[in-house]
């Protein structure tokens, strides 16, 4: 039999002025299961709480209803009071008779009547409450950062700085990411390598940071505080621990016709290679697609020249498994492929390049040693046309609906650098809008226009046609002058839209985090929780969440680190006990619930059931991880069989409230 105590608060006159609190207590005293109903001046006060506590002890209460202000106000207060009196805190319900009754109604009779009904609903609910215990789950004091670009490096450094071990998983042979390929950075025009490479070194030298380069995340299991991750270290056929990075093998390697991805394929590298001089780790890697030894078994030059004996043609992919308390995603971006943009002749003409390719062409460590030459004939270009928004802000299937955010600024940078270095070169920029919100951004852009006389033309490039004389005809419209233009250009630079890295989608599935339709990771709250994913313990750093420039990326990297540190600082996490749970006997494993869970808290297991006739039957049933579930209840409605229910807000509890209100 329920023994419910009802405590009606006057809240001074806040409630008592419009609600006859004595009548409320009197009426609720007659409800089934109610053994004591009292009213008091201030229930939240020390003595008010004492009233509740002593009633719990003396009357051996099994449930408590407080008729007072909003539960958002004092639910916790009363829960704590109950707990201190030995009653499970989740056996307390609050009937909101202040904000939702006394403060909005004027007529004492109707307000009292409503307060009684609200009280009855709370009594009906509390009669069905079950004691709930918050689960404690321990936190592994180690973080994983997926992606070794500037975002990942910044995050890892910050976490390590706070005293936690952190692993970086980078799919390429070196960390550094896109920033390593960039020549100068806007709006300060300082050298990217000069500010990035020290950080790369710092990361490699920090004893709390382990870099798994040329590695990929294979599998993620577990939940906040306790993820188990399988990392595949891809075979690089070079023993990382032995290789000194001397580079002799790369010089001697006879296979030198491999497109160099670091230089965007604008020059070649050898089959055994170190991506660039400042690579971290500075270790050679054999490209098995090109290595003669691996393909035909004949060669072995690198092995012969390697004095460290680091070459190992028999090396296999290895899987390492590690526990982590937090995971930071920093998978970054790529420029989109421009195959579909025939109008810009990207595939037909080598002198039509992307901005990132231009970046390499202008880089001192690039294919031309920093001299800007046309890829086709290595001549100096005199007229360069920049085309903005190639694939950005695009309505059709070819491109992306969003603004890639960084193009306006890097194009201004490129234009400015070209005009600075080669004043004889005319630079045209075709734009739809120039977007320069950012510290010193607009000033930078205006310098390009005013100081460097870059020709900014609002308009669209209609067609780029390579001509037989090696020139390129750029047909465009000037929207402001309302005229058609033809520019006889030497080079065309396309500001290709950026998109999330292709590895992000399968990773999101593994992490059970949400992505938007563009494959950018979705943050837990667009304003208030911008660096957390909706899945607890997964944080977002850099451009995987949306297009960002370097300072923003670094800021978010540090923010993500701060959030991860906040988690790692805890020894254990207290989970909200109001979570969903599935009745295995009722669940039919249809997978509806899993589809609507924003947290990936639901998995399916094949469970063996002993049937009443003593046979066994294996059935697929849903299983909710209470440490991950946040208790929204979406699954409970998706479940047709009623197997899924939510503690604290169960079907029967809510229906009891409905019944009480409608009575």
């Amino acid at each position, binding site marked *: 039999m329920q023994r419910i105590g009802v405590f009606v608060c006057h809240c001074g006159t806040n409630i008592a002025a419009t609600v006859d609190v004595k009548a409320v207590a009197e009426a609720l005293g007659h409800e089934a299961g109610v053994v004591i109903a009292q009213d008091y001046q201030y229930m939240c006060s020390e003595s008010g709480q004492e009233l509740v506590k002593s009633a719990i002890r003396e009357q051996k209460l099994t449930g408590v209803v407080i008729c007072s202000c909003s539960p958002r106000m004092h639910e916790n207060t009363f829960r704590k009071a109950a707990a201190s009196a030995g009653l499970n805190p989740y056996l307390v319900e609050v009937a909101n008779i202040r904000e939702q009754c006394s403060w909005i109604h004027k007529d004492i009779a109707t307000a009292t009547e409503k307060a009684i009904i609200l009280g009855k609903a709370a009594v009906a609910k509390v009669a069905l409450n079950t004691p709930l215990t918050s689960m404690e789950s321990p936190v592994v004091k180690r973080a994983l950062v997926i992606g070794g670009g500037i975002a990942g490096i910044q995050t890892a450094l910050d976490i390590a700085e706070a005293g936690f071990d952190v692993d970086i998983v980078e799919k390429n042979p070196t960390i550094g990411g896109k920033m390593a390929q960039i020549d100068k950075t806007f709006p300060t025009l300082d050298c990217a390598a000069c500010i990035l490479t020290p950080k790369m070194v710092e990361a490699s030298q920090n004893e709390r940071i382990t870099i798994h380069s040329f590695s990929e995340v294979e599998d993620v299991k577990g939940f906040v505080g306790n993820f188990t991750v399988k990392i595949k270290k891809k075979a690089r056929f070079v023993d990382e621990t032995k290789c000194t990075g001397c580079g002799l093998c790369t010089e001697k390697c006879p296979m030198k016709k491999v497109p160099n991805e670091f230089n965007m394929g604008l020059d070649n590298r050898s089959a055994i290679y170190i991506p660039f001089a400042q690579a971290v780790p500075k270790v050679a890697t054999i490209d098995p697609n090109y290595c003669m030894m691996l393909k035909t078994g004949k060669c072995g030059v690198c092995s012969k020249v390697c004095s460290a004996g680091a070459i190992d043609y028999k090396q296999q992919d290895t899987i390492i498994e590690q526990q982590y308390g937090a995971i930071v995603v920093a998978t970054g971006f790529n420029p989109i492929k421009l195959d579909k943009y025939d109008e810009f002749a990207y595939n037909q003409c080598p002198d039509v390049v992307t901005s990132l390719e231009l970046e390499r062409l202008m880089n001192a460590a690039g294919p031309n040693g920093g001299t800007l030459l046309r890829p086709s004939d290595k001549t100096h270009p005199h007229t360069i046309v920049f085309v903005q928004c190639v694939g950005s802000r695009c309505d059709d299937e070819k491109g992306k609906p969003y603004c890639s955010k960084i193009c306006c600024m890097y194009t201004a940078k490129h234009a400015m650098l070209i005009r600075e270095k080669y004043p004889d070169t005319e630079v045209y920029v075709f734009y739809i809008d120039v977007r320069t919100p950012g510290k010193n951004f607009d000033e930078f852009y205006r310098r390009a226009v005013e100081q460097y006389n870059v020709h900014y033309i609002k308009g669209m490039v209609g067609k780029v046609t390579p001509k037989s004389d090696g020139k390129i005809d750029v047909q465009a419209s000037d929207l402001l002058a309302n005229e058609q233009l033809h520019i006889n250009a030497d080079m065309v630079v396309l500001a290709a839209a950026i998109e999330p890295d292709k590895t992000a989608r399968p990773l999101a599935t593994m992490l059970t985090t949400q992505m938007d339709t563009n494959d950018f990771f979705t943050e837990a709250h667009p304003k208030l929780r911008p660096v957390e994913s909706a899945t607890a313990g997964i944080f977002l750093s850099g451009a995987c969440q949306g297009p960002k420039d370097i300072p923003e990326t670094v800021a978010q990297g540090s923010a993500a680190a701060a959030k991860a540190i906040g988690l790692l600082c805890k020894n254990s996490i207290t989970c909200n006990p109001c979570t969903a749970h599935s009745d295995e006997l009722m669940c039919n*494993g*249809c997978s509806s619930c899993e589809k609507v869970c924003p947290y990936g808290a639901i998995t399916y297991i094949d469970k063996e059931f002993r049937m009443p006739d003593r046979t066994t039957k294996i059935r*697929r049933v849903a299983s909710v991880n209470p440490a991950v579930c946040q208790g929204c209840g979406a699954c409970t409605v998706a479940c047709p069989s009623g197997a899924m229910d939510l503690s604290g807000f169960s079907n029967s509890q809510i229906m009891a409230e409905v019944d009480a209100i409608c009575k």
Partner: protein
Amino acid sequence: MQEAMIKRAKELLADGSVDRVIGWKRGEFAYDITPAVFTTAEELDRDFVCDDFTAANVSKYLVKETQKEGKILAFLKPCDTYSFNQLVKEHRIDREKVYVIGIEGGPKLDIEKIKAKGITGILSVKNEDYTLKIETIYGTQTMPFYEAILGKCASCKSKKHVVFDELIGEDGDVLDSNRFEMVEKLENMTAQERFDFWRDQLSKCIRCNACRNVCPACTCENCVFDNPKSGIDNKAPADSFEENMFHIIRAFHVAGRCTDCGECSRVCPQHIPLHLLNRKFIKDINELYGEYQAGADTTSRAPLNTYDKNDCEPSVVHERGVE
């Protein structure tokens, strides 16, 4: 076709490809056909039937059948393949344990429609060039074939098999069906007329649960209406509300999962057009969230298990038709 099916079934049984065959078994009369599992060639020769009356969708039986050892051969009509696929999608059928032979679909006959013409004492029903020749104790009667076809066949949505391991006969196409006509007609009525229509229909309900138990989407271990813990269990419609409740909740639970196989209306002993409730959901889903055919594939997200940020608001209900 029946001969070809029996021949193929015997071959597959003989070479051990399958252990059992699910199909239809002939009965006492021309029309009382029962879904059945066959294990031997003799049984197939004796009892197996596939004719104008084999309308029953055998997909749901495969839930139980695939929990058994061995592989089963299932003959599926185009409409049945949708149910089958949906059940595979919901992990209720183990696809590996079924060898699916797609067979040509209907239209199948509805004995109730023949009887409704006052024809009784039926001894045999023959389709002679789309005229039914019905031998009865009281003499021979005829009626046009198409006047006797099942409601679900009259608004057939597809002659295409969405899943099969092999086909006997030709595969057809997804049809441009008229299946939403009645839903539209109702939508264009006034609320009072709609209410009266449904009250009249649903008041006939005897809560025999035939609609639920035949429904391939209703494969819960324990239906909420049978589970006293659900708070909405009920056994008999003691009040008109309970008729509404049962059918609304059932339709909601199968919304986005119902393939519109039409079995609910076929088996209703009281001829309640229950499929209209499901079709209303299908029509709404198609119009509001994009065309979706449950069971057409095994991977797409069910419309109620996904969303679009630009989905319409419920006020869309207010904005259309008459109140």
